[in-house]
């Protein structure tokens, strides 16, 4: 058991080491594939370390390894290190696993990249893995925040991986700014919390919370600020706008960062510090409501997307909403469970989608079609992912989603519960919409839509399964999804709340209902999509416009910040500096004016003398 911390430490440092090597040894990085293999090997090592660490943990025991980071007069302000317990190591496994698989997968997906930029890609990947693990293992708020920002950086760099595409560049910057806006809140929260409690350390804070220290009473505002950070990272409404655009990055990146790990950091944060949030129930309520609303809201958006990755992105947002709702209901563990399962099957979905895009050279589902026959393996794994996302029994997503529904009900959030149910229905619908459109039906003639990079310009007609290195990864994930699902079905880990009996049938019901509707609309064409759209014209329109939220943010940025900056800039140059210039100009003018006194006429000079004498007399307040 003593080893758990050390295993975790190794797991954490492995990718860090590979990052160092890749960034400092320039020729190695430039060489491309060797760099890739190096990074892969190290992440494999990380995976092993993570598993060992998890196996070494014992319940209700945390192992800490700390080093002083910032000293102060009396002791240590904050330290860095590892806090390894059951939860963190579990999360560690997820991160290590997904990042390992994704790196493996990328080797095939980015096969056509020039070596130099491939090396760059893997350097970023290692950095991300390092930072994410650091986040997971963080023993205190400071390290958490540091890694928090670093994963944000990695996401920025990886979204902008194809930096020469204007969309990619824009999306990267947008993602950074929006999350940063949340982080501002996070930082403020941390600072406030510190000045209240005088510590950043989770263990100390936990002890305080247990002891009911009054330093923690009435910290609603603090926790809300911290939640802002989580909302930004985990794309909660209204911060969700960056996630769909983030799909400009390579698909494996989306799978790793924007589906499985980084975006869930917010959830993990709330789960990790739930003992603090419990001190501020009103904040928890807000979390629940916002989460549920986000889930539903994103689901509706997902229904109208034509870009397969965007569908998945919105579904991610929606699922994150689920997790948040559960935490808001006060049952963080349920959210955490869903986090884990979702991590697996959403990665699966993204990677499968990646395979499709790789084959079809397009993100547009309407440019696909009939792929089931040409890419059978991909079809199967995608279907598995879809089923578990839709929440069909014996698949990974089913149990965790049911848990969440139960949690919200038990938490007494009735209306959010309803929203979640509706969202579940929509989820099943839009996922199968994708399945039917992309994999069945007749193949579209020519690939349209944006050409996905890293793929040759093949069209749906001659698409075939991805190279083995990618399919292997897919199968591994699919297997996991199924095993987890069956595992849960066999051994039901009892939850700390009573799940009313109607939950399970309801969950299955809405899922099946959603699938049914999709079947009715797309393959069978009993109801035409257009009719549906016309029925829900307003909603359809709004969804297509993303409810004008992005426009709103753009407006705030352009006319708000940039406008203000222009005003300030003008003020600085033409008023502040202007006054200075006026003063100097006046001095010059004064010189000229005074110069005229020197008229060159001797009498005037004598006036000078007379006046001088008078002046002196007056100055002595004469006559006294």
């Amino acid at each position, binding site marked *: 058991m003593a080893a758990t911390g050390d295993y975790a430490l190794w797991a954490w440092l492995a990718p860090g080491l590979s990052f160092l090597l890749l960034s400092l040894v320039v020729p190695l990085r430039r060489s491309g594939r060797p760099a890739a293999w190096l990074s892969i090997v190290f992440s494999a090592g990380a995976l092993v370390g993570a598993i060992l660490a998890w196996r070494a943990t014992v319940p209700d025991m945390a192992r800490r390894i700390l080093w002083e980071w910032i000293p102060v007069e009396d002791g240590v302000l904050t330290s860095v290190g590892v806090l390894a317990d059951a939860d963190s190591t579990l999360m560690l496994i997820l991160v290590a696993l997904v990042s390992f698989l994704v790196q493996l997968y990328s080797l095939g997906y980015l096969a056509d990249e020039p070596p130099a930029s491939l090396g760059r890609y893997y350097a970023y990947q290692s950095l991300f893995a390092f930072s994410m693990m650091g986040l997971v293992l963080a023993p205190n708020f400071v390290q958490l925040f540091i890694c928090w920002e670093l994963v944000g950086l990695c996401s920025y760099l990886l979204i902008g991986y194809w930096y020469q595409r204007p969309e990619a560049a824009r999306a990267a910057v947008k993602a950074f700014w929006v999350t940063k806006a949340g982080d501002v809140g996070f930082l403020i929260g941390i600072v406030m919390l510190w000045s209240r409690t005088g510590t950043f350390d989770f263990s100390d804070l936990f002890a305080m919370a247990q002891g009911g220290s009054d330093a923690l009473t009435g910290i609603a505002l603090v926790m809300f600020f911290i939640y802002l950070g989580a909302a930004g990272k985990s794309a909660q409404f209204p911060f969700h706008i960056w996630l769909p655009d983030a799909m400009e990055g390579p698909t494996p990146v989306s799978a790793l960062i924007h589906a499985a790990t980084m975006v869930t950091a917010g959830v993990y944060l709330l789960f990790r510090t739930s003992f603090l949030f419990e001190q501020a129930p009103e904040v928890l309520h807000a979390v629940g409501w916002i989460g549920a609303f986000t889930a539903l809201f994103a689901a509706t958006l997902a229904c109208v997307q034509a870009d397969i990755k965007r569908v998945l992105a919105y579904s991610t947002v929606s699922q994150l909403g689920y997790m948040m709702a559960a935490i808001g209901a006060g049952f963080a563990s349920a959210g955490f469970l869903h986090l884990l399962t979702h991590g697996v099957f959403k990665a699966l979905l993204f990677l499968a989608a990646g395979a499709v895009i790789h084959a079809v050279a397009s993100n547009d589902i309407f440019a696909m079609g009939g792929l089931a026959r040409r890419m059978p393996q991909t079809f199967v794994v995608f279907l598995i992912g879809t089923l578990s996302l839709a929440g069909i029994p014996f698949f990974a997503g089913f149990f965790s989603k049911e848990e969440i529904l139960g949690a919200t009900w038990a938490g007494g959030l009735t209306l959010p519960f309803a929203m979640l149910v509706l969202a579940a229905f929509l989820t099943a619908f839009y996922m199968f919409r994708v399945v039917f459109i992309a994999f069945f039906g007749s193949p579209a003639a020519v690939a349209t839509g944006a050409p996905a990079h890293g793929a040759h310009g093949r069209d749906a007609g001659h698409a075939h399964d991805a190279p083995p290195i990618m399919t292997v990864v897919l199968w591994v994930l699919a297997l996991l999804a199924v095993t987890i699902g069956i595992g849960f079905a066999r051994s039901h880990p009892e939850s700390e709340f009573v799940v009313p009996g109607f939950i399970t049938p309801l969950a299955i019901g809405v899922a099946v209902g959603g699938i049914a509707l999709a079947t009715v609309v797309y393959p069978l064409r009993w109801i035409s999509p257009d009719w549906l759209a016309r029925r829900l014209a307003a909603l359809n329109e709004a969804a297509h416009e993303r409810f004008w939220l992005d426009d709103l943010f753009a407006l705030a940025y352009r006319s708000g910040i940039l406008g203000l900056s222009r005003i300030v800039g003008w003020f600085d140059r033409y008023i502040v500096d202007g006054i200075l210039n006026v003063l100097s100009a006046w*001095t*010059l003018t*004064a*010189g*000229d004016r*005074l*110069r005229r*006194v*020197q008229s*060159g006429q*001797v009498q*005037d*000079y*004598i006036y*000078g*003398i007379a*006046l*001088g*004498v008078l*002046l*002196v*007399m007056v*100055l*002595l*307040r*004469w*006559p*006294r």
Partner: protein
Amino acid sequence: MSALPEPGSPLVLEVGLALLMLIVFVVGLLLPGPDKRRVGVLTALGLVVLFGLSWRTEAGGELFRGAFVQDELALFAKRLFLITTLIGVLSSLPLRAVTFARRATEYYLAILASLLGMLVLSSARDLVLLFVSFELMSIPLYYLAGFIKREPEAVEAALKFFLIGTVSSAVLAYGLSFMYGVAGTTDVRGLAGAVAGGHPVMLLGMLLALGGLGFKIAAFPFHMWVPDTYEAASTPFVAWLSVAPKAAGFVVIFRLYLEGMGDRVLYWVPAAAALATVTIIGGNLMAIPQQNVKRLLAYSGVAHIGYMLVGLAAVSANGAAMMLFYLVAYLFGNMGAFLVVEAVAQAEGSEAIAAYRGLAQRSPILALSMLLFLLSLGGIPFVAGFWAKLYVFWAAAEQGLYWLVLVGAVLTVVALFYYLLVAKRMYIDAPDRREPIPVAPLLGFCIFLCVLGVVVMGVYPKPLVVAALRAAGPLF
């Protein structure tokens, strides 16, 4: 009638100078040919001898019932006058004008006469002697100012100088008459007692006298002759004129207003402070738009007088000492600058700032020395001017005149503005022509002397400070 006094007698310098004048006069008459410039060499040698002699004579000793006193202040001033005149004479030797060549005798005679006036003035402690030596100092200046009588500007300048000069000396005499009347004696020491009586008429007289002296030191409202005269007269003479008579004026001020006044000196604080303020501001502002370097230096010189008046406003031994120090710093800086102007003018035939384009690339040494002089005038560390300003401000600060210090310090920035404009011409602008500027060896030597003075004083001011303190000590 006074037989040659043995060396060490208070009068030795004056008598020596008189002899020198006699010799110069005779030699000038006997010297064959139209070119009489060689008397200049003679003059210079004589001055060197006198300067050496001035270190042999020690302070102490009075003559004519204390009308003539050889104290530390007098000696300090006399050495100052001698070295200034020496530099002035040396730098005037390379002058080329034909008139000058033929009339060199008169020129040097006049300079020596004026110098004699200064020497006596610095020791005079009797109103009559003071007034006469004052006039002896002034009258040759009018003559020298108009020496280049072919040029209308020069003559015009001389006439203006003369008229204003006589008016101000009338004012001075009027003031002196009151001082005499109230004190009932022409002895300066007697005046002090009378001031202690604080009789208004006495103060009236002193104010009028201050007006008269204000002209000589060129404080702000009385300064107007300065730029015109400087611009028109021959540069070596101006270099000398810009230092020696002002120093003499300050010595008179010390004698009349500070010596033996006790706490009554506080009378002058408001007047001096006010004069200082207007002089600093006026001088600096009017210097800004100047395009002719000599005019620029003239106005900046006015501003410097303002800074010295700050020291006067401090009315303390330190203040007076710091003024003396300032005078010496100003001597080297200002004369040096004027001599560089002369050098450039001889080569370029222009005294405009524009003539200095790219001087740094044409003849770097000359440019560097000019820069040093300007920095010294601007009061930058490690050249004399910095310490001068610092000490003066310091004395004022001791008197609690922080506002005056602030005004002075801030206006220094304005001064640096126009000094840097010249520096810009020299260093930043590209030269029109490449070939270096030829400098007459003697002129170069004088410039070198000034650089030496500026730098040495800047790096190691201590001995001079001590000397100044010793000189100003007996005043209080």
